[in-house]
């Protein structure tokens, strides 16, 4: 089942004197349960494509269809609600809220969705166990290691059971051990719970674990390979 589909997607930046075509007519689709990596050299359009897929940016032209709905036509308010209910984000710099504890960060979106306390507690407990940070619930981000912070970020992205997770260079700030552990967790969630992960990365360790690799260059897809099982 298709989770996301892009049709003739363009994103052109005109703020500078030189017009930059960051995404230059990309048509792609992702199905449920994918573990895909968008790869390519710096400036090839990975992050721009990921931002467009996540509704953080609007395309210059083309459409992005998620669950049968063209999100490029949504208003800013509708888009924020759409993101809250359908998309999970994992950022390179973790981006946890410093004044909240690990648990409060993880249940932040569920709070926005006004989920009952019991449901929140159960989900966070389940997730913290699954990603191996049990016992860290009441600790603030500043007292967690980079790897632990990124796990909390993963828990936050997964808490509201989104349709897919977008992860922009999630391992860029992690050491080898933390990267391996994080990827193990993500892959396990993908395989056991059929959660869709789409990465923008140039980390070989992520690329090695991906089931599908989409190569971008100058804003176009130059190669799209799927692992043959």
């Amino acid at each position, binding site marked *: 089942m298709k989770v996301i589909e892009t049709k003739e997607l363009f994103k052109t930046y005109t703020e500078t004197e030189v017009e930059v075509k960051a995404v230059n007519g990309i048509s792609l689709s992702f199905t449920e349960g994918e573990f895909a990596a968008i790869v390519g050299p710096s400036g090839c359009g990975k992050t721009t494509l990921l931002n467009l897929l996540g509704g953080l940016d609007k395309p210059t032209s083309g459409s992005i269809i998620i669950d049968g709905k063209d999100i490029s036509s949504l208003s800013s308010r509708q888009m*924020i609600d759409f993101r809250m209910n359908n998309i999970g*984000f994992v950022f390179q710099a973790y981006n946890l809220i410093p004044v909240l504890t690990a648990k409060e960060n993880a249940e932040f979106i569920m709070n*926005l969705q006004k989920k009952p306390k019991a449901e929140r507690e159960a989900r966070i407990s389940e997730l913290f166990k699954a990603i191996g940070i049990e016992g860290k619930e009441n600790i603030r981000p500043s007292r967690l290691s980079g790897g632990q912070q990124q796990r909390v970020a993963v828990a936050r992205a997964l808490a509201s059971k989104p349709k897919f997770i977008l992860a922009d260079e999630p391992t860029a700030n992690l050491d080898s051990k933390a990267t391996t552990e994080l990827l193990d967790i993500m892959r396990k969630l993908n395989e056991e719970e059929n959660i869709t992960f789409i990465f923008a990365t140039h980390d070989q360790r992520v690329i090695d674990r991906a089931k599908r690799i989409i190569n971008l260059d100058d804003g176009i897809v130059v190669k799209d390979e799927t692992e043959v099982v």
Partner: protein
Amino acid sequence: MITISSVTLAVVLAVFMRSFQEGTYGKMIENAIGDFTGYVQVHQKDYWDDKTIDNSIEVNSTLINNILEVENVESVNQRLESFSLASNENRTKGTLIMGIDPEKEEQILSLKKKMIKGESLKADDKSIILGSKLAEYLKIDVGDTLVLLGQGHWGNSAIGAFHVKGILKMPAPDIDRQIVFMPLKLAQEYFSFENGITSLVVKFEDSDLTQEITDAINAKIDTTKYLAMTWQDMSPEMLQQIEGDRVGGLIMIAILYMIIAFGVFGTVLMMAEERKKEYAVMIAIGMQKTKIMAISFYEAILMNSVGIIIGIILAVPLVFYFNIYPIEMTGEAVESIEKLGVDPVLPTTLSLSIFVNNIIVILLITFLAAIYPLLSILRLKVIESMRR
């Protein structure tokens, strides 16, 4: 913390400055008006324009009863005032002679409290008391005799030698330099004016009712013969001085409010700038901008309220302290303050309205200062802000 501190400082500064200003005006009015002329007086209708003893009133119980019938009026004191030359040895000075009922005037003039030497007057005394600066000029002391020479009623000469029973210090230096008090009966004898008075001083508690009471008295008395006047009518120069000074004070306080506004605006803006990334992440993961604005607004209210509460906690004892122990001016400042007819001390006032008004103004400033940072949340660009 920075925001709370800036609001706290703003409250302390604004309250302190305003209570000093109003305390000084209050002192000025109290010295020259409340403790001397009273807030309302009734005279013969031409007296104020031509203050001669001939434009006076014969004591008239109907007139006094009419005044006493006005709501909030507590008492009416009779005075006979005129000018005379006072002489001792080879020194002479123009003085204001005020014939009073010493017992009744205690409520307004509080002479007993002001005595620095000798004793205060009694109704049937044949003695006088005088201001300390006048006594100093005339080189006269308690027990000496003061010679007075003036004009009495209907052209009679007023001449007398009076025993000095006491010396008092009037808080307004101008008055202290020229005042001689004597019992009303003695003054009527001196001015050859039996039963004559020049002023009826109306006593009431709340000075805010001055105009209201004056209007009510004028409605009750025969205004073809008599006229009730407010202290503002009687001392327009003092009113002008206070109003002029108040405008200056308001400009000062406006400048202070502007500094406060910029300080608070700067801290709120800095806080919003520092949190842009945090806000961007919240928006990215699904929080509406309006919700972030609402939270930031509540946060501002909370921080401002904490700042205001701390500010009040700090300002109250400070204002109380300087009310009890006013700042005593020294050096050249004494002369300039005395020229205003005021004691050279600067007390604070304990008026609740100063606290309330300043709290309202500072709350308004802090809310206005929060508008721009709040609006910047609406304009926030998520991707750019997350890259910071």
